């Protein structure tokens, strides 16, 4: 379903931030433009099979989010290839395509359109979304006035409307109360039953253990381990977390 082939992503971190034309021009005469190369991902290869629930774990800054963004088509790899056979719905860093100064209603319509729904289809789902996210009294409130928990609930509810066969889930459990987490749990089991392909990123090793058929460990931008869930989590605890 998803094949990642020798993907490398390099970010250039300038020593001096030159963002304006004025700076660029003056820098032409003074010092040369210098930057450091930061390898966010180095030669990453793996594939995700159909119906697989794949976990990706790694410490902060290990390149998980960059990898997900590349799979979702938001970033382009510096080198290497990505092949995605089916439609993907990303649910990255506790959010979908939200804009804070739009109302809840507008954000639902925009994200519905981004997921490929027509206006009628969104209208049909609108009340369900509001109900599931428990936002009955906040339909026409600007999104950035909602609490973080409310925003996550809304984002989650919108993302699960999608019928895309591949789902990317990044750190959903981190925010949200027990009731919300229970909803997530039920949903993930439902996905497993339906045989959907899910790429799951979490720091919560408990839930990784619960859902994932296979786990990959990212460390400093490289895949250091790829295999069955129990072994990998054991390895991760012993080798990476205790370092």
């Amino acid at each position, binding site marked *: 379903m998803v094949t990642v082939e020798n993907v490398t992503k390099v970010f250039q971190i300038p020593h001096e931030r030159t963002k304006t034309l004025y700076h660029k021009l003056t820098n032409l005469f003074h010092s040369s433009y210098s930057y450091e190369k930061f390898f966010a991902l180095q030669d990453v290869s793996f594939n995700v099979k159909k119906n697989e629930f794949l976990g990706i774990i790694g410490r902060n800054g290990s390149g998980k989010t960059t990898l997900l963004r590349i799979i979702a088509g*938001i970033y382009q790899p510096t080198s290497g290839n990505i092949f995605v056979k089916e439609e993907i719905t990303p649910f990255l860093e506790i959010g*979908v395509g939200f804009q804070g100064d*739009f109302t809840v209603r507008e954000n639902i319509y925009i994200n519905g359109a981004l997921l490929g729904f027509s206006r009628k289809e969104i209208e049909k789902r609108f009340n369900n979304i509001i109900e599931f996210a428990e936002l009955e009294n906040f339909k026409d409130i600007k999104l950035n006035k909602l609490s973080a928990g409310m925003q996550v609930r809304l984002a989650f509810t919108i993302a699960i409307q999608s019928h895309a066969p591949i789902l990317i889930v990044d750190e959903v459990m981190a925010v949200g109360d027990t009731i919300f987490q229970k909803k997530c749990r039920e949903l993930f089991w439902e996905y497993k039953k339906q045989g959907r392909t899910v790429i799951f990123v979490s720091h919560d090793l408990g839930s990784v253990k619960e859902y994932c058929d296979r786990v990959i460990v990212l460390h400093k931008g490289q895949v250091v381990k790829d295999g069955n869930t129990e072994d990998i989590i054991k390895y991760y605890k012993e080798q990476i977390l205790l370092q």
Partner: protein
Amino acid sequence: MSNAAFSVRKSYNIIRELALADFRMKYHDSVLGYFWSLLNPLLQFVVLHFVFSYLFVVEVPKFTFYLLSGIVFWNFFHDATLSGMNAVYAKASISKKIYFPRNLIIFSSTATALISFIINTSILWLVVIVFDHFSINQFLIVIPFLSILLLAMGTAFLLSVFYVYFRDTIQIWLVCLNVGFWLTPIVYNALTAPLPLKMVALFNPVGRILIMLRSFLVYDDFPSVEFMVTTFVFCIVFFVVGLWLFNKHSHKIVEYM
């Protein structure tokens, strides 16, 4: 990549939802609401009309309609180019989370500006019909209308590419717009202007579009076919080049934000 079938229908839905939400947001919190977008060009018109009818008299036949049409079209160009450039930044919260063709950002911000433009142009036309004349030729204003639409989008695409690399593009462009207002025959007649100004005004695509517009709308005559064709073709080419460059750089737009 996950470009999996971005159908025209899906793109259209995204443009519509973004444009409508932007339009609502722009006028939602103000008392006068949408009337602001009418009031603004109207006040501009009143001031310029006063200055150039009483203080420095310009010899332009039917000056009232001449000036009003110039302001309506110029304001669209002004708003569409500026908001297009802003949108790339303002929509980063969305484009960092989910993939969609990045050029839809510019299409939707132009669509927002287009809503006001259509209303203002209709009012302009109505004013001409009520206070001056009606002619079947006035339907030809669709040519300058489309021309300025293409030109504004092409410009917004180019500016957005610059904006990713140079954050002061907005300031520079604001200055350009200020100067451009006076280098475009909005308050004076291009054909009777002093030679250097005349050349600039005639080579300026917005100026050429305005000449077409006023021929059809105000003076009921035709510029030469050659003049119309070159202007329209220029706008199409400009749009295509802008879109092409934007698409070429579009993946960087998200990464640099």
